[in-house]
């Protein structure tokens, strides 16, 4: 059983993970951008209630979504405008 738990944890840093709330327009904006650049990601859905979002606070320092955790560096990005700007710079025409 320890093996199952270990492998579960190992995938956490291998994948681009989007913490999101169902029907949140800021989250959908990031999803659209990820899809535009053909980037794979794993969705983690959290609760509408801010007070129930401790997991988001642990990864980003605040309880707001979206939060994107990158696979390359493990960098955590918050605020949809920042995330979109980062993705455009990394993967858009202006990037490498």
């Amino acid at each position: 059983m320890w093996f199952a738990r270990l492998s579960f944890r190992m995938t956490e840093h291998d994948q681009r993970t989007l913490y999101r709330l169902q029907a949140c327009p800021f989250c959908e904006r990031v999803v659209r951008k990820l899809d535009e650049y053909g980037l794979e990601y794993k969705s983690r859905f959290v609760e509408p209630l801010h007070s129930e979002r401790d997991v988001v606070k642990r990864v980003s320092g605040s309880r707001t979504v979206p939060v994107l955790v990158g696979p390359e560096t493990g960098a955590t990005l918050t605020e949809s405008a920042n995330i979109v700007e980062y993705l455009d710079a990394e993967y858009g025409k202006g990037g490498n």
Partner: protein
Amino acid sequence: MELGFDVVDLPSHDALTEGDEAPEFVRPLVNDEYWEDTALSEVAPALVVFYPMNGSFPATYIWQEVRDRGWMERATVVGVTVSTPYSHKSFLGRYGLDARLFADPSNEVAREYGVVHDLDGMEGVEEPRPAVFLIDGEMSVEYAWVAQEHPEFPPYEEIENAL
């Protein structure tokens, strides 16, 4: 408990049995903080507990028993039923469960495993019948139990010996 009458039998089933290969599936897997699409093979080896929808008394009885027996400390325990991820999250919190629950509103996973219960008096609603499968790391069924009566509860001692 002596009821003085026969408990209703469930129809015969074609559920998986020991030695069968467990069908792979992907569904939102809910923990106490979030949910994400997860394949059964990502969590196997695991004890997979099919159970009636959250809110029914069998759901409550089964999970309180699993919690009190400490199975979650001994094995990876996952539940499967038709309830939504939101309902699962409340259910885990309400009963202090360390387990993770797959949300399968279409009941397709129960269909794949041969454990569908078509509910009388709730048109268009079905759920899994209680069933417990111990799946090993190679996705093979090591142990299987399926309810034959309505209601019927898992043979906890027998399952504990299989763990």
